[in-house]
């Protein structure tokens, strides 16, 4: 399987290196507590990943690809791994010719991957109730308030089967359910584990996750998504943009939950000029303030779904799924 990715990703003279990896895990948990809880649950996750490095004289670029989720071998067998490798190679070759991004505030369209990272970093983390309780969230005291545009609805849902952040029962033994963090722009729910739920006098909502049996459960995200909107295609989102950026794929991000500032980086991007994609760009980074950017979301395609699997670090590392539709932000700081 890995050779399939590697061979298709290497099929060009400018590709100098490809690396591929596979991981799968079977998670079996048994939880016994002094309250009489005695629960046992098991599930699996699988992941393949590849990285293509291409070079043209002194210009060197790399493109990373991932595929996986909750499930076993059947998940990977359902993926056209040759196509996955080829797509990564084509993207790397495109990056070789890409220009550096302009900087400044401008309209931004984010693909599904980047939309997912944005909503994970900018909104998901500040919604974690342990940070809210610690006074380290820009969303403290904002439950019930309008914090985003009307079209923004966000869920964190560990019950999405196949999502890399799926789990059937949380690590305190609480049944999982979908959490609707924002409904039509209104902040409606925080992510809680039992301790924070007790702090706020509410029921826990299954947000407790531990990296493994050696770590204590923290409030964590699972599969976090913006729900779809009313636009059919990316062309619909681009048509009235004179000058902006279309950014794709994620190289990760970070958030200062207290200040509500965030930064995330795209794998590749294009300039949008007069409603059309023009110049390919590389090493694009987007930053902003959560409460400003959520208000600036002014277009979403209909087809929300999870994007590539990811990992989230918060002292402990856990697998997560992020995604959404293609998203348009009227103004974001790009660099």
């Amino acid at each position, binding site marked *: 399987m890995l050779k399939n990715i590697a061979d298709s990703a290497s099929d060009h003279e400018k590709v100098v*290196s490809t690396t591929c990896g596979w991981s799968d895990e079977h998670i079996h948990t048994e939880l016994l507590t002094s309250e009489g809880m005695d629960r046992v649950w098991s599930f699996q996750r699988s992941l393949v990943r590849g990285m293509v*490095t291409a*070079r043209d004289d002194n210009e060197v670029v790399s493109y990373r690809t991932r595929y996986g989720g909750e499930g076993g071998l059947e998940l990977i067998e359902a993926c056209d791994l040759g196509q996955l490798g080829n797509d990564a190679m084509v993207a790397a070759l495109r990056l070789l010719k890409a220009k550096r991004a*302009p900087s*400044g505030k401008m309209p931004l369209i984010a693909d599904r991957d980047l939309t997912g990272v944005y909503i994970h970093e900018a909104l998901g983390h500040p919604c974690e109730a342990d940070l809210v309780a610690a006074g380290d969230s820009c969303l403290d005291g904002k439950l019930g308030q309008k914090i985003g545009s009307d079209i923004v609805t966000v869920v964190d849902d560990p019950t999405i089967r196949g999502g890399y952040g799926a789990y059937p029962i949380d690590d305190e033994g609480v049944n999982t359910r979908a959490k609707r963090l924002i409904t039509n722009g209104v902040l409606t729910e925080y992510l809680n584990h039992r301790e924070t739920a007790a702090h706020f006098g509410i029921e826990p909502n299954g947000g407790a996750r531990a990296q493994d049996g050696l770590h204590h459960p923290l409030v964590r995200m699972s599969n976090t998504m913006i729900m779809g909107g009313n636009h059919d295609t990316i062309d619909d989102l681009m048509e009235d943009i004179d000058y902006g950026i279309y950014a794709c794929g994620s190289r990760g991000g970070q958030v200062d939950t207290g200040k509500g500032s965030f930064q995330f980086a795209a794998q590749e991007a294009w300039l949008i000029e007069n409603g059309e994609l023009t110049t390919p760009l590389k090493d694009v980074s987007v930053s902003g303030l959560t409460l400003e950017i959520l208000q600036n979301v002014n277009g979403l395609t209909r087809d929300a779904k999870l994007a590539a699997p990811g990992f989230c670090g918060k002292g402990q590392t856990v697998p997560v799924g992020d995604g959404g539709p293609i998203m348009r932000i009227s103004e974001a700081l790009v660099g």
Partner: protein
Amino acid sequence: MLPDDAVARIVEGAQSIGKICQSKGIGEWEVVAFQSYGHELDIEAGKITLAAGGGDGGYGVRVLDGGRFGYAHLVDVSGAEHAVSQAISIAKVSPAVEGFCLPQNQKSTDVLGRCDNRILDVSPEDLLEQADSILSEVASLDSRAVVTGGGVGVSATAGAIVTSQGILSSGITTSHGAGVQVSIDENDELTSAWESSSSRKLLKSIPDCIETSVHWAQCTRGPIEVDSQAVDCPVLMTSEGFSPLFSVCIPAAVRGEKLARKESFWSGNEGQMVLANDLTLIDDGLMEGGMGSSSLDGEGVPRQTQALVENGRLVGSMWSTRDSAQMVAEGRIEHAQSTGSASRGSHQSPPYTGCSDMILKSSKGGNSRDDLISLMDNGYIVHSVMGAHTANPTSGDFSVTTSTILKVVDGH
């Protein structure tokens, strides 16, 4: 914190796994063992919120047969038969790396300051006292300041490596860390700064990072507006601001296999000027008290102090035994050998090439911070960056943000 017999126990366990390897006729094998214990306290919202402690450890076994290697790990020596068989079966289906042999026992240099016995005696109550002192200190430095996150912790690790090539080494390392996120939230304005300290030696009760954190939360209040358009200007990055970017981009660029595979932005520049001619980059594996230093690397090869860039010229690269053999076997490089740069994340994974304690220094000597500010005339001081991990280690490009930043005007 660490049982008195921890080292003896893991050496005995590693040797017994080695005997199983021998009994199965494996020509070359290597067993590593780690056992660590520690305790820590978390601080949230100005309060101590969680005390935790515990231990972790196990064994990793690497077997090598005709250049084919297999790796398996285990927690208890009772599972050694199965783990060794697993490593053998993995080796059988792994591609052979011609010329790959495990390293022989070599003379090494002792590295001082890796273990502080005082840390072994630190109790959870001692940590509570330290955390209380830190909270009090922050309040005394600025009554508005609150430690919104962070904590203190100590740990000790017993480690050992035993190989078929005559390497037998063991020892204890200790560490003590403290970190605080200090916030000042007043008049609808929130400023904050994260600072941390870590050492193999016992930290003082109030580490310097505490005052620094309060300072940056104070001095970034009342921010001015700046133009969001790009501008070229001098930037003074403090060590805390520079290090995260440096550690993402530079160690990867001087890994031997990255250079050989042309994956490094410095590939093809061996022997060429890659930095300003007063700058020298050293990977010091023998630094007294260095967090990454030790007498032997993760494969049992003696660590060294190695110049990677000397007066601006790329003169070296970091190698592990396997990577050097593989790159030579693949014909990507004529000759390479281990530089004692094999690292191990834990017993659960085979060694990989990595830096120990990497330092950038200038032959011009050190300027004081005030001198540097005066020389820059107009520009910015950046003390931390957000998104350092999103820097591109392949190209070396980065685009990050910061909120601990000061503007310099006319050298002030």
